[in-house]
């Protein structure tokens, strides 16, 4: 048993933290996150240059580390800085392309290097996080596939060069079987994007696919392998988002403790009041538990069920704890915590909205229970 970071991981953490500390004040972050593009092409290029995208991938995938702990470490650091750059899209798109085999190596390399931006489009208007709910259709043709349908709330889709799409080759809308996973160039004919701002900063978009003609090699996986790939990709999202949430919680923890010591009422710092002390201790304890959940999820054991359970346990834990931390941080800051001016409000928003990506607390509770029956 060993909880220490390896030397390489410590260096990686230093690199990201130093870059973000130097280049990424909260006001700059807000300028970028709430801008027309929701991210900064320049910051993205600089971070990719530092190898931070490549750190999410294994050597076989063209990266240099890419274990669960590396992914968690990168996303925790991104969370601490509230960084809206499209790292999640890169991670998930890259993992999907890597599963697609050698013919996707060029696109994979361009994702790993940060040259191209990726997005994954699994959510639909009626799917409510259920990966198998796919109404978008893929019709086999003589020259490949025709895709028709809609995809909802695709993170950073407007910025994306490559989009990973789930579509149905056969069967009913909620079947696990009959799915196909496709890699699509964002500028392909018939693909329309309706781009909008996220409540917490960054951008997403609605995707409309009308007779999008794909060559046969666009298919990354089909049949049982397609659903399995969906779950694998979602699993990476669970880990990354849980770690990002943890980073945000750490920031909210420190700023709330600082505020409790600073803010005077009734002639004393409000941190002298036992009612607030006990609530703060509960948050600290819950955040320690959330860190343990992320560590458990980072080990990514080979056993598929065990791995999926750990990932759902982590996403469930950070969803429940994240909401509590966000609400309590705002409450203990009082009126000032409600203001756009205070960083707390922006951290709290992202923390809460993370629950709305790749399954909320209820989704993961139900999934954990299902997995426990296996």
């Amino acid at each position, binding site marked *: *048993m060993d909880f220490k970071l390896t030397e390489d991981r410590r260096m990686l953490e230093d690199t990201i933290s130093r870059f973000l500390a130097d280049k990424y004040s909260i006001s700059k972050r807000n300028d970028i996150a709430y801008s027309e593009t929701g991210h900064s092409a320049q910051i993205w290029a600089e971070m990719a240059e530092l190898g931070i995208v490549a750190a999410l991938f294994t050597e076989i995938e063209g990266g240099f580390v890419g274990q669960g702990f590396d992914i968690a470490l990168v996303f925790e650091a991104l969370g601490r800085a509230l960084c809206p750059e499209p790292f999640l899209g890169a991670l998930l798109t890259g993992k999907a392309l890597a599963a697609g085999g050698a013919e996707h190596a060029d696109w994979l390399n361009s994702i790993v290097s940060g040259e191209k931006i990726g997005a994954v489009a699994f959510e639909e208007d009626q799917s409510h996080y259920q990966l198998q709910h796919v109404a978008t259709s893929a019709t086999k043709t003589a020259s490949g596939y025709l895709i028709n349908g809609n995809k909802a709330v695709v993170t950073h889709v407007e910025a994306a060069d490559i989009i990973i799409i789930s579509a149905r080759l056969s069967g009913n809308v909620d079947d696990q079987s009959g799915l196909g996973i496709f890699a699509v160039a964002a500028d392909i004919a018939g693909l329309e994007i309706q781009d909008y701002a996220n409540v917490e900063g960054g951008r997403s978009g609605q995707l409309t696919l009308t007779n999008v003609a794909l060559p046969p090699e666009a298919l990354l996986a089909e049949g049982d392998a397609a659903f399995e790939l969906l779950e694998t990709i979602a699993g990476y999202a669970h880990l990354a988002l849980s770690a990002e949430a943890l980073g945000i919680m750490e920031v909210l923890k420190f700023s709330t403790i600082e505020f409790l010591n600073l803010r005077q009422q009734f002639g004393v710092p409000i941190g002298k009041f036992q009612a607030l*002390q006990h609530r703060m*201790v509960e948050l600290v304890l819950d955040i320690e538990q959330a860190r343990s959940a992320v*560590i458990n999820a980072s080990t990514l054991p080979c056993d598929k069920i065990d791995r999926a359970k750990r990932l759902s*346990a982590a996403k469930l834990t950070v969803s429940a704890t994240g909401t509590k931390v966000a609400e309590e941080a705002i409450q203990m800051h009082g009126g000032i915590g409600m203001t756009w001016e205070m960083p707390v409000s922006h951290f709290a928003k992202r923390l809460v909205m993370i629950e709305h990506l790749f399954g909320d607390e209820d989704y993961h509770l*139900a999934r*954990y229970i299902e997995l426990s*029956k296996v």
Partner: protein
Amino acid sequence: MDLNFSDEEEAFRAEVQSFIKQKLPAELAAKLKLGGAPSKAELEQWHSLLNERGWLVHHWPQEYGGAGWSPVQAFIFDLECRLAYAPAIVPFGVSMLAPVLIKYGSDAQKKHWLPRIVDGSDWWCQGYSEPGAGSDLAAVKTSAIRQGDHYIVNGQKTWTTLAHFANMIFCLVRTATEGKRQQGISFLLMDMKAPGVEIKPIITIEGGHEVNEVFFTDVKVPVENLVGEENNGWTYAKYLLTYERTNIAGVGSSIAALLALKQAAKQRKINGRPLSDDPYFAARIARVEIDLENMKTTNLRVLADVAAGAAPGAESSLLKIKGTEIRQQLTSLMRRAMGAHAIPYFPEADGIGFNGPNVGPQNALHAAEEYFNFRKLSIFGGSNEIQKNIVAKMMLGL
């Protein structure tokens, strides 16, 4: 970063398992599994078996007979003992008094008392709490007045666990009333058989007898039974409270309780289906299981810090709060899992050869009793509210 036990740790685990398999009486384990309480003789037998193996005082310094285990080994030992339903080591002599004697006792005291703890000659109990000194321990009033070669002790202790099994008690007594309250407290070793010592049982909520009141009326205690310096007892008391708290989370007990709960939920039926398939009950189990999995890693992280030389400080308080919450939740779920069968009350039943009326499944016999008894967990050893005060002050600087 590696969450798995190392090969050496796995080998150690196998060694512990094999010892338990050979030595732990099966009937005793079966009785404890059903929520029964071990008798004095059974506790002494288990202590003696552990002592033969050199494991009773495993956490003592090696020159005093300790096993030289790492914190992780101690964790594994506790985990395996709990999974096998071995009795818990009675902590008062082995884990509470002994570390104080080793750090602060005189050579004569160490030479006299430590071997007697190891071989079971003495059964110690803890005289800390008083009717007016619970969470506010420094309010102790029991007085010890020096008269020649003796202290004369008058006063009352309460919540004294297993005092009715004990022949010795270590006490916080007041030897000075001036100055700060903490500065007038001394740490005294007293003979329970001495004239003027009286024990009265306290029957707790579930009907059991674990705790007692202990009264002292002009009890003569030889001055050589003072540990350390007079009026410096608060320091020793605090040391005792922070020592060996790395297993305070009770992860082993909770893992065993969760296994028993899941087994029970599979056996119990609702609408002809196992209770474990009921979505509401399944959700309750899933939540506590996830909390426990997180807690286990939190506990191991603290152990890793301790192994790296950090003193367990306020982290033990966090472990105590979360660990007791989880253990209480598990007893609560076990009670619910038994449905109406949690109601019948057969305190004398120990599961083994119980000839009472057929009142339902055996694991229902003590489910409610254990639930009520376990309310104590968040009260004793420093209530969970006191633990939060400690964390707020020590860790958060509030």
